[in-house]
Each structure stands twice: as C-alpha cells, then as structure tokens.
C-alpha cells in the first residue's frame, strides 16, 4: 500500500521532469528519429548491392541476368569487370558476379566467378545461396525437367514477419533499460553529491520510500515515452502487437522496476558522476550484444547462450517479442517469466540493501 509521502514525492519527481523542457525535448526526439529511420527504409534491411558482368551475350545468360534481377534481396548493377571491381574495392558493391563467355557451352559450361569483399561475411552466404537457386532454376529450364521437390515457405504463425517486427520489441526493451538507469543511477549520484538526499533523509522517510517514489514517477514517465514510440510504430510503421497492448505495458512496467532498481544499485556503488558512466556501460553494453536486440540469441555461440538468455534485458526483450509477435500471454509460466520474477526480487533487494544516501566514503 502506497503512503502519502511516497505518492507526493512521486508526483514531485514527475513535476520536475515535466518542467525540464530539455529532457522533454530529447525524450521525444529519439522516438521521432527512430520512427523516421524505419519509415524511410521501409522497415527492412537494405538490399545487397551486386555488380553483374555479362561476357556471354547469349540468350541463356540474359535469362540468368533477368532472374538475378528479380531477386528482391539484390540491387543489381550491370557494367564492365574493371569498373565494378573498382566499386567493389571502394565498398560501393558487396559482390560482383562475372558470367563467362562460355556460359552456354554444354556439357562443360564456363564457371561463374564471384568476386567478394570477404569482410562482408554475413551477406556472402546469402548471395551464394540465391545464386545457387537461380542457377538450379535455369538448369531445370534447359533440361526441361520439373523439380521433384518444391519448397513453399509458410509461416506457421500465419502472420507477416518483417525485420522491424523482430527489432521493435528489442529496441523498446533497450530504450527502457537506458531510460531507467539514467533516471535512477545518474540522478541518485547527483542528488547525493549536492546533499539533496541528506536533506530528504533528515525527515522520517526511509530509503524504500524514496526508491518506491522514484520508481513510480519514472514508470509513469517511461510509459509515456514508450507510448509515443509505440504509437508511431503502430500508426506509421504498421506494427501489429498481436498479444495486445495491455500485456506489453505489463512487461514494460516490470522491466522499468528491474532497471530502475539496478540503477539505484549502480548509483550507490558509484562515488562520482564520472564513475557512474563506466559502471553503467559495464552493465548495459554486454546486454546490447548478448540480449538478442538486433539478432536472435540463438545466433550466438552455444556456450554463451544459457547466460545470455538469463540476462535481465534478454528476459524482458524476449517476453515483449513473444507478446508482440506471437501473441503470448504475460503470465505464461516459462523461462522468461521466471527470469522476470527473479530479477524483480533480486534488483529490489540490492537496491535497498546497498542504498547510500550520504557521501560515499573515499
């Protein structure tokens, strides 16, 4: 049950934030930038730039070129070998494919050459796979045979899945973590340095009252900030939250609680504003890599996956993604839900146990 001092203090934190026009401006600026980036890119990764040199000038080679051009994942540019090679070196092309003069000489046609920038490892596999499929299709056409097996991709979850659908819940979770830690960790160091915490604690309020108040206020502020992003994503990027907004907001609230408490803990460890920054980076940066924000956790090395899955950002982002993309229930008992429950208790424990409101002894 909330007390009168807790509620009043929370309302004061909201008032202070509302009156800080600079914070308000920047908190709304990021969602706008984020939405614009995806709005203009169509929410999908850019197509791979593929240079194409046709030395054959034969009908078959033209057919091959047409088929490659039809691939949506490629942005094809035709030209001479020397010209496209230069573009490949200057990173204006990701790969260059050269169709030899002997392309149509059966039974021993000349081999296609694929010039690559080896640093673009991720695209290389995709290019090779697409080209193999195209070659196979041409071969079938020449031999006049129907494919024995056909592969029709069907999404078992029966909904269109774009990269932005995968990315948005992770980005929301990552923003949630950063907003919370900035709202508690950085604030607490500053309040302590200026003696404001000491002024508060000459009154009968206890650390838990202060923590609950700032958590309430920040949750309110963060809900508004994330609602702006969600509103833009739903309205402009046509994101469909399959599980509904209510469970999604539930996870956001749980996540806010966890990360605010972690922020208090880090703020108590840090002696100065300078030392809080590396501490926060130490907590947030590994999670940006390991928590499946941009790529699924399953793409990480297998030995690190169990640890990565249990990180607070991982359990929050995964639960948000499950609700958003798959319509999962918030309180479904699974690994992520248990992870959230664990982090709620653990983070509140370390926040209150290690809370330091006086000057940190040097």
């Amino acid at each position: 049950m909330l007390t009168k001092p807790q509620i009043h203090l929370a309302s004061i934190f909201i008032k202070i934030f509302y009156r800080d026009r600079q914070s308000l401006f920047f908190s709304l600026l990021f969602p706008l930038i984020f939405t614009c980036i995806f709005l203009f890119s169509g929410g999908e990764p850019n197509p791979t730039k593929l240079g194409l040199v046709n030395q054959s000038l034969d009908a078959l080679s033209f057919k091959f070129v047409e088929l490659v051009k039809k691939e949506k994942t490629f942005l094809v540019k035709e030209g001479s070998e020397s010209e496209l090679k230069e573009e490949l070196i200057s990173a204006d092309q990701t790969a260059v494919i050269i169709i030899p003069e002997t392309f149509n000489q059966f039974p021993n046609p000349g081999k296609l050459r694929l010039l690559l920038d080896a640093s673009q490892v991720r695209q290389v596999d995709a290019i090779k796979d697409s080209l193999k499929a195209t070659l196979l299709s041409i071969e079938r056409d020449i031999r006049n045979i129907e494919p024995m097996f056909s592969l029709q991709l069907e999404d078992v979850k029966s909904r269109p899945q774009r990269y932005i659908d995968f990315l948005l819940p992770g980005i929301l979770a990552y923003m949630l973590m950063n907003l919370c830690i900035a709202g508690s960790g950085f604030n607490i160091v500053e309040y302590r340095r200026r003696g404001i915490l000491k002024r508060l604690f000459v009154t009968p309020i206890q650390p838990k009252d202060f923590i609950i108040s700032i958590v309430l206020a920040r949750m309110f502020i963060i809900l508004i900030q994330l609602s702006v992003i969600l509103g833009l994503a739903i309205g402009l990027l046509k994101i469909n939250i399959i599980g509904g907004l209510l469970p999604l907001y539930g996870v956001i609230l749980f996540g806010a609680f966890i990360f605010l408490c972690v922020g208090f803990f880090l703020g108590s460890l840090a002696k100065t504003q300078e030392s809080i920054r590396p501490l926060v980076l130490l907590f947030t940066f590994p999670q940006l890599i390991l928590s499946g924000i941009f790529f699924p956790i399953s793409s990480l090395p297998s030995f690190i996956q169990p640890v990565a899955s249990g990180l607070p950002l991982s359990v929050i982002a995964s639960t948000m993604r499950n609700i958003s993309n798959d319509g999962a229930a918030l309180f479904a008992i699974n690994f992520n839900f248990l992870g959230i429950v664990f982090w709620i208790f653990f983070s509140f424990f370390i926040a209150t146990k290690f809370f330091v409101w006086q000057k940190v002894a040097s």
Partner: protein
Amino acid sequence: MGIIKAVNLEKHYPSPDNPAKTFAAVNKISLNIQPKEIFGLLGPNGAGKTTTLEMLEGLTSIDKGNVFIDGVDVTKHPYEVKKIIGVQLQSNEYFDRLNLSELLILFANLYSKSIDPRFILAKVDLENKINAFPDDLSGGQKQRFSIACALVNNPKILFLDEPTTGLDPQAKRNLWNLAKDLNEEGMTIVLTTHNMEEAEYLCDRIAIMDKGSIIAQDTPQQLILDYAPEPNETPIHGNIEDVFLVLTGHGLRD
C-alpha cells in the same frame, strides 16, 4: 531528565594516514540538554561537532553509547526521533525547478503533514518570496529558508549546523533574532558554531569540543569566569573567544 540525553557517545572512522587504523571523531561524549534551552557545540574544525550533532539526529550511526531524544532511543527508533526534530543542514541544495512554496509542501508531506507555506515563510520573513526559487535567494535568505524547511513539522527540537557561516553582520543578526524567537515559542535549539559572539549571544549553555571530546561545558558567563585570563594592567574584558583560544590553542586548524 533532559529532552536530549547522550551518554558516552563514540564514533570512529578510518584514519586518513593509515586506513588500517581508526581515530575517534567523537570520544565518550555525554550531554544533558534541558527543554527550551539553546545549547551550543563550539569547537575548531575537525573537533567532532557535526558528527556529534548527526548522531543526536539519527543521521550517523553510533558506534558506542546511547542517545535519547524526548525519551526515545535514537539507535532503536531513528524514524520516530526524526518526526519530532527539525534539522538545518550546512548545505542549502534542493530539487531543481521547485519554488519555495512547493519545497515546503514537499517536506511537510514527508512528515505526512499539511501546512500553509505562507505561514512558515512568514516566520522566517520570506513570505514575499513564496514563488521564488532557492537559487534566487541571497545567502541570508537561503539560511532562513533552510530553517523554514526544518520547521514544517513543528519540531520540539531544532538542530542548526553552523547556521551563520558566510553571512554578513545584518543577516547574522537577523538569524540570531529568529533563533531567539523560536526558542521563546518553546523550541529547544542545539547549534554548532565557530562564531564566539554567536555562542555567547544565543546560547544558554555551551560545550566546547576539541579532538572529539568535550573539554568544558557550562553557561557562557561561567566559562568566562573560569577560563578567561585575568585582566592585566591594561584592563580588557574577557569574552568567550578568549576562553575558546585558551582551551583549544592558537594554532590554525584545517
């Protein structure tokens, strides 16, 4: 029994020269402060005044000894003690973007009390600054506002930590009058100070501290009689500053 009773208070900190060792910031201090008294803790820098005050207020943990405020054990019930005391701190920093009225209402709410901020500000002669922000106040006004914040719960005891440091003579005199007025209303006041004139003018009794211990404790008049040097050929009047220098030496402290 006094409204504040401290018995053999001790506080130890790691030694700055050798962290493996400790030094006694407060060493077996006992106090018995009566209701409606103005009691001064006088001492050079590092004497242990603020540490003693913060132990009485429940802001600093007590290593050894006991403190009872109005019969309540500070160690066992620090939050009960905080309900009946008002504390003015040395630092005058507050949340940004809140005016004096909003800050007073905030502090009152932390005691679960409702107040009329105009009434409290009138007590410290700041009623015309009700919509001002702390940064807009002068040094003396800031100190008076700091006391206003300590009055929101109508405390029985008011603790003032070096309340006139850095103030000009007019602001200093104004603040002394405020302390006197509050005392006449029935408030017990405990203050720390470097200012001899302040101690002599305001305090009913003074404890002089040095190196963590109380080295003398009495009324200003009695301390002058006991310790001030006898007038020599050129008649000079002794004052409490003479007492202070005789007891703590003339050497500079940090």
